[in-house]
């Protein structure tokens, strides 16, 4: 479970999160939506500790992780898998080295790492033939799958996705969404997906909307199109007029 209480973060004068509260239950699949620049990615980075909040508290499985550092922080990384917006694959390493990096750095022999990497690569719907390829030789969709395979190597209980479908064509968007859903169900994980793609509603259980540094709505996705919340109404229909001002 993830519990966020009164989270605040500013960069210079710009306030990003302003007293944000959010609770994500175990095994829940939640989509956090909001306009670009609302601080959705900053929220995710604060959860895993890549960015330190100015104030507020973050709990992961009832443990306050707001100010932990060093080896303690590494323990949190083992629980929380993070899938980056542009996959963030190490461009000097091939797919095998990227996915197996964690084990390889621990000194686990290649012959032991390989079957595990192949297993994860197949789970994300890729052919093991890609293992020798470098990130520059992969398409956007393939990079995101490799990024997910790399995250799955740690068998995390919580999966955080930072705009996983940005820059992809509609067919690949659907494939990635289905893959996220399949991974969520198979691993019985808690999934938090940052997105501004309304297609995510077909897969997520809950939707939360971030606006001006706060969660202005949280509710089930099945009722989303009937929702009378003015922010949701405007956002999902892409209306220029409403409480969300450009």
């Amino acid at each position: 479970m993830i519990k966020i209480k009164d989270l605040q973060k500013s960069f210079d004068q710009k306030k990003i999160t302003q007293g944000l509260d959010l609770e994500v239950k175990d095994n829940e699949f939640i989509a956090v939506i909001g306009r670009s620049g609302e601080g959705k990615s900053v929220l995710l980075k604060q959860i895993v500790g890549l960015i330190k909040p100015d104030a507020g508290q973050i709990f992961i499985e009832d443990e306050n992780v707001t100010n932990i550092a060093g080896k303690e922080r590494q323990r949190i990384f083992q629980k929380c898998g993070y899938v980056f917006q542009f996959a963030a694959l190490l461009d000097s390493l091939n797919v095998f080295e990227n996915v197996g990096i964690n084990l390889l750095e621990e000194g686990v022999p290649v012959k032991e790492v390989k079957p595990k990497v192949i297993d994860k690569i197949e789970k994300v719907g890729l052919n093991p033939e890609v293992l020798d390829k470098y990130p520059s030789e992969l398409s956007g969709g393939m990079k995101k799958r490799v990024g997910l395979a790399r995250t799955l190597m740690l068998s995390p209980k919580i999966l955080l996705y930072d705009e996983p479908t940005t820059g992809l064509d509609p067919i690949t968007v659907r494939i990635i969404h289905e893959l996220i859903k399949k991974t969520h169900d198979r691993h019985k994980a808690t999934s938090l997906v940052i997105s501004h793609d309304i297609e995510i509603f077909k897969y997520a259980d809950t939707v939360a909307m971030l606006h001006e540094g706060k969660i202005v709505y949280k509710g089930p996705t099945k009722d989303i199109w009937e929702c009378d919340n003015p922010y949701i109404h405007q956002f999902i229909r892409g209306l220029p007029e409403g409480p969300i001002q450009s």
Partner: protein
Amino acid sequence: MIIKAINLVGKTTIGFCNEAGSVAVFTYRAIETMFTTRIKFKKVFRQANHIGINSLSVVLLTGGAIGAIMALHTHHGLEKFAAESYIGSIVFLAMAREFGPVISAIMVTGRAVSSMTAEIGSMRITEQIDALKTLSINTFQYLIVPRILATTIIMPFLSLFCTACGVLFGYIISVYALGINPETYQESIRQYAELGDITRGLIKAGIFGFLISSIGCYKGYTTWGGAKGVGIATTQSVVYANVTIFIADYIISSFMTMT
């Protein structure tokens, strides 16, 4: 006007102190990592190989040129006092004590430290460093320590090659262009050179290697602001590293002449 000037001086001083403090903390973290985690020798060797091969040709070229130029200039001055026989020792001492370590450090800064900053900076802006962190990988152990260790280890070798090349080209110019007796050149070196001149130069080179690679890694690691940010960080790392070489050279030389 005066207040503006005071403001500017204050801001610059605070900025400099901030930056110097951050580099110190960064370097301390790197040293701490060296002693508290397993050193990845394979990575250190790969980096040393990369830095050495990349920089060797320019180090030899500039070392040779400096040696040749020094032979020319000292001959011009010493000729007036009929003291041309000292050319060999002057070229050797200058190369071993000063030019070898300084020139090779400047060349390594241009060739390897700049690429270190650009590489780590690109990793920073494309979230590759964040990705390593989320995979529980110690980024200092993985990225920083191998580069700092490799540069510190390889610099004395480059300095030695630079010195040797300078002395050799000084010899060629002295003997074949200035008509100095080859025996005189060699005898002059034998008479005045001490092993301490070489070892001090090598120690200096090692310290330069440590300092410039720390600056290069720090600037890369703290890069922000996209592709433009990588460009700025790379330029700054080269400038800061070069300035550091000269300041450190003075301090180390003063210390060495005292002992």
